[in-house]
Every structure is written in structure tokens, then in C-alpha cells.
């Protein structure tokens, strides 16, 4: 297995990696020497920069300013102060969607990471068919979430496979109209979103596991460390960057869930599956209440930024790799 180790050692300085170990310094120093030529002209960055400025900054700030108006897209926008915010905090639909969004985001974060890590650990080394299994398990990631949602809409349908299997296995009274009952609909949405994203978490964890030297684990095993001890004290600290990336990614994805709800339940039954994204969409683009929609969007943006900041703080690199 030393072959794969050498490979990581020689490729990682090129990747300016998260793990520039002490042994790799000489390679890295070559990159630091002061360059003798001027590389490109600064205005080459202009098209990209202009695109980012207009779409990610100007548009976002303009959109945020609508939050304090009664803008509807037609005619004048009047300044209404915090009226939209007062309204949204007493809007049952928005408050319910806030709870649903939190449930989905946390459930999504926990489930994709646990299943993704388990699959990555199982497929990291040893299995003969590991490359084949990685390929097929990643497949859901490249499919469109709309298509995937419809597959599951059928699975959860009254006459769908799930109920049919329950009948066939002798549990006919466990049958439900899964997407039409408030208790099960939100969980169904969560399952669909998780199903599609396990493969993504898996490949990121696999990339993280690839840098854990097998020798280290074997040495620990010789010293009598059990599988749990090795996982907690060797693997976990070393895949810290992968954990940080995966949790950030799954948290923001989980908070933004929209497609699955739109395709499977459209927020129903009785708002049980409404998320902030679907409520924003409905108010902004169906009711054409740009001002009110912008106010909810602003709250949504703040929620995402706070969640991302908390999460980055919790999974920050505590110096194990330095």
C-alpha cells in the first residue's frame, strides 16, 4: 500500500491542500519565490467581477431594500418601514415554514453525514467491488431532483410500492397516504432529499479518508486500540476538513430545500411541508408581493448566514493537522 501513500505525498503540494504536512515544505517553498513576470492584466478579471458584483451584490442589496417597501413590480414602491417584518412574524405560514425548514436542515445534515460516512468507511479499502459500488451509489447525485422527487411521489402514492410491500408483508394496517398526512409528509420530503445527497457526502468523505495513512491505523491496532478507538483518535481528527466541508454543504443545502416540496406536495397538506424557500416563492412569484417576499428572503438569508457561521465555528480546525 506504500504506493498509494507516495502518490498522496507527491500530489498534495500541487493541490495547495488543507493538509500541508511538515514533510512537504520543500515542494511548497518553490511556489513562494517572487515571480519575475507580470501575469495577465488586471482587467482580465473584469467580466467575472462585473457579473459577481451585479448579480451577487447589487441585486441582493436591491432585493433587500424591497423588504422595506410595498413593491409589487407594478407602479411605485412606497417605503413602509418594518411593516413587512411585523407581518411575517405574525404570519402563521411563515412561522410554520421556519420550523419545517429547521427540521429538514437538521435532519438532512445528520442523516446525509452519517450515511455518507458509513458508506465511505465501508468502501474505502478492501472490497473487490468498491469502485463499481462508488459509481452506482454516486449516480443519484447527478440526477435532477425534480425527477427523483417524482419517483418518490410514486413510491409514497396510495397504490404505490411502499403500501404494496406493506400489504405483501402482512402489515396492511400500516398503509398510509404518506404525502397527504401531515405527520408523514415532511419526513417523506426529508427522505427524498437525503437519498439524493448521500453519494455526495460519501465521495467527500472518501477523499478525506484517502489521506489517512493505513500504517498509522495498523500501528494503533498493534498497540491494542480497538476499532472505535482508532476511529475516534485517528480517523476522525484526520478527516476534519472533510467533515467541515460536508456539514457546511449539507446545512446550506438542507436549509434551501425547494424542488422536492414543489414536486411532491407543493407545501401541503395544510402547510405541513412548506419551507422558507417555497413560502418565498409563493409570496414573491405567485402572489407578486415583491416587498413581502423580499422581507421573508432577508430573514432567510440571515438564518443561513448565522447557521453557516455557527457551523463553521463548531467544525473549525482545532489545529490537529498543524
Amino acid at each position: 500500500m506504500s504506493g498509494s501513500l507516495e502518490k498522496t505525498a507527491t500530489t498534495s503540494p500541487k493541490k495547495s491542500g488543507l493538509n500541508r504536512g511538515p514533510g512537504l515544505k520543500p515542494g511548497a517553498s518553490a511556489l513562494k519565490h517572487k515571480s519575475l513576470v507580470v501575469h495577465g492584466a488586471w482587467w482580465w478579471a473584469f467580466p467575472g467581477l462585473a457579473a459577481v458584483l451585479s448579480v451577487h451584490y447589487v441585486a441582493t442589496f436591491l432585493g433587500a431594500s424591497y423588504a422595506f417597501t410595498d413593491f409589487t413590480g407594478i407602479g411605485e414602491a412606497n417605503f413602509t418601514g418594518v411593516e413587512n417584518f411585523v407581518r411575517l412574524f405574525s404570519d402563521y405560514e411563515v412561522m410554520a415554514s421556519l420550523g419545517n425548514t429547521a427540521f429538514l436542515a437538521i435532519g438532512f445534515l445528520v442523516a446525509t453525514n452519517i450515511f455518507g460516512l458509513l458508506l465511505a468507511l465501508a468502501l474505502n479499502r478492501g472490497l473487490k467491488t468498491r469502485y463499481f459500488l462508488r459509481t452506482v451509489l454516486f449516480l443519484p447525485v447527478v440526477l435532477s431532483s425534480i425527477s427523483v422527487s417524482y419517483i418518490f411521489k410514486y413510491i409514497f402514492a396510495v397504490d404505490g410500492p411502499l403500501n404494496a410491500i406493506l400489504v405483501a408483508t402482512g402489515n396492511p394496517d400500516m398503509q398510509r397516504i404518506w404525502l397527504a398526512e401531515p405527520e408523514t409528509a415532511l419526513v417523506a420530503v426529508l427522505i427524498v432529499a437525503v437519498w439524493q445527497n448521500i453519494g455526495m457526502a460519501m465521495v467527500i468523505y472518501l477523499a478525506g479518508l484517502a489521506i489517512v495513512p493505513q500504517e498509522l491505523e495498523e500501528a494503533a491496532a498493534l498497540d491494542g486500540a480497538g476499532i472505535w478507538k482508532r476511529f475516534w483518535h485517528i480517523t476522525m481528527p484526520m478527516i476534519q476538513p472533510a467533515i467541515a466541508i460536508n456539514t457546511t454543504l449539507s446545512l446550506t443545502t438542507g436549509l434551501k430545500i425547494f424542488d422536492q416540496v414543489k414536486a411532491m406536495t407543493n407545501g401541503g397538506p395544510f402547510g405541513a411541508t412548506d419551507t422558507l424557500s417555497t413560502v418565498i416563492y409563493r409570496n414573491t412569484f405567485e402572489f407578486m408581493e415583491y416587498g413581502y417576499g423580499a422581507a421573508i428572503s432577508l430573514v432567510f438569508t440571515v438564518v443561513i448566514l448565522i447557521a453557516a457561521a455557527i457551523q463553521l465555528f463548531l467544525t473549525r480546525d482545532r489545529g490537529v493537522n498543524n
Partner: protein
Amino acid sequence: MNRYTKLTLLREIIVWIAAIILLSPLYFLVNIALKSRTEGVETPAYMPAMKPTFENFAYVLGSETSSTLYLGLFNSMVIVVIGVFGLIIFGSVAAYVLVRRTSKFSKVTFYMILVGIVVPAQLGLVPIYIGAQTLGLLGSPAGMGVIYIAMLMPLSVFLYAGFARALPTEYEEAANIDGASKLRTYIQVVFPLLAPATGTVATMAGIIIWNDFFTPLIFLGGSENPTLPVVIFSYVGEFNIEWNNIFSVLIIAMIPITIVYLIFQKKFIQGFSGGIKS
């Protein structure tokens, strides 16, 4: 060192069982698409198709709704091509210049672009919509491509920058000594060296654009130029439960991306995980 023991075999079997359960939804997808309407109604949903037929595919490809399906396929491809090309060209030069220049301005600019990855698009959508309307970009695949270039630019710059930063400058210096202009150095020396990052940007952006539903729903919904996900969404609607036909449409829509994925699967998986590593 890695002996294949009985325990490994057991692990292999367990993972296979997990994989089969995980991928069972795809079995239902193909199975129902191959069942005739009557067989679909009369047999339990999990039962394999006894008389597999392609009549559902023939129906959805031949009926009057098929023209929107072809149009959606075409539009999605056009938008992906425009978007990916723009992201490669403008993203790579921007990242390269910002990484190589050490001024404070370029550093600040770089981080400003990165912030765009975290901020959700929702707030900006109405202004972008109004802006696109003013510029005449609304409802056309080309306009949609331009919008994607702007929306995904931070991701492209981030991926290219990670790679460009680790690139040794010697090649550029050699080209410079040989008298190559800045532009020529970039096109003939730097850009080819960035090829792995280009692959990552192309696969990630390609997948994101191809599968995106939210943005085209807003910008192309109700227009004459929907993308594939929007076509599927309006085809199914709220009450269509002819699953045999719906699933045939889904399979037709999945075929292009699945073929591309299976051909370049290594590149895809490396792209998604490696892009994050750098």
C-alpha cells in the same frame, strides 16, 4: 497487507445489500416505465414487468406533448453549453489574475467573489428578473445561459483559484523570456495547465445547470423556452398519475446525463470531491 478475509466478504455482502435497498427506487422507475397501463394497474407495484413493452416511450415521444420534451432537451443543452463555456473562459482568467497579482485590491476582490458562494440567490432574484427583462434576456436560452454564468461565477473562480495558486510560475517565466505576450502565455501555457480545474468546473457547473429547477422556473416558467426540469414539472402537474408515461419521460430526460456520467464517472467523482479539496 490487505488480506481478503471472511470478514471482508461479509462486509462486501452487507454493502451490496445496502446498495440494492438504496437504489431500489431506480428499479421502480424502470419497471413501471416498462409496464403497460393495464399491467401497471393490475399487478402490485413491486412486481417485475411480465410483459415488458416500449409502448409508453413510443407514446410520450410521439404524442402532441413530445415537441415540448424535445424543446426542453434542446434548451437545456444550449444553456449548459453557453453557461459552461462562459464560466470556463471568464472564471479561469479572473481566478488566474487575482491569484497571481499580490496587490491588496486583488485579495479583497477575491474574497468578495467567494462570499457570493454562501449568500443565497433568493434575495437577488426579483432585481435580476427586472434587470434581465430590461436587457431582453428573459425567456431565451442564451439569456438564461448568461444568468447562470453570473450566478455560478463565484464557484468557478473558487475552483480555478485553488488550482492556479498551486501552479508553479516557471512555465510562465520561460514563455515570457521566449518573448510570448501575456495573452499568448495565458492561452498556450497557463490554460492547458489548468485543465484539471477546467474539468471540475465543467462537470460541476454542467450538472448544476442541467438539473436546476428553481431558476428556470422563475425566469423561463410560462415562456416558450422551458428547460427540461420545467418541462417535466409542467408535464406531471398536480394531478397526472399516469406513472407509466411520466416515468418514460423521466427516463428519457435522465439518459443524456447518465451516459455522460458513466463515461466520465472518474472525472465526475474526482471533480466533486477534488474541487473541494483544492
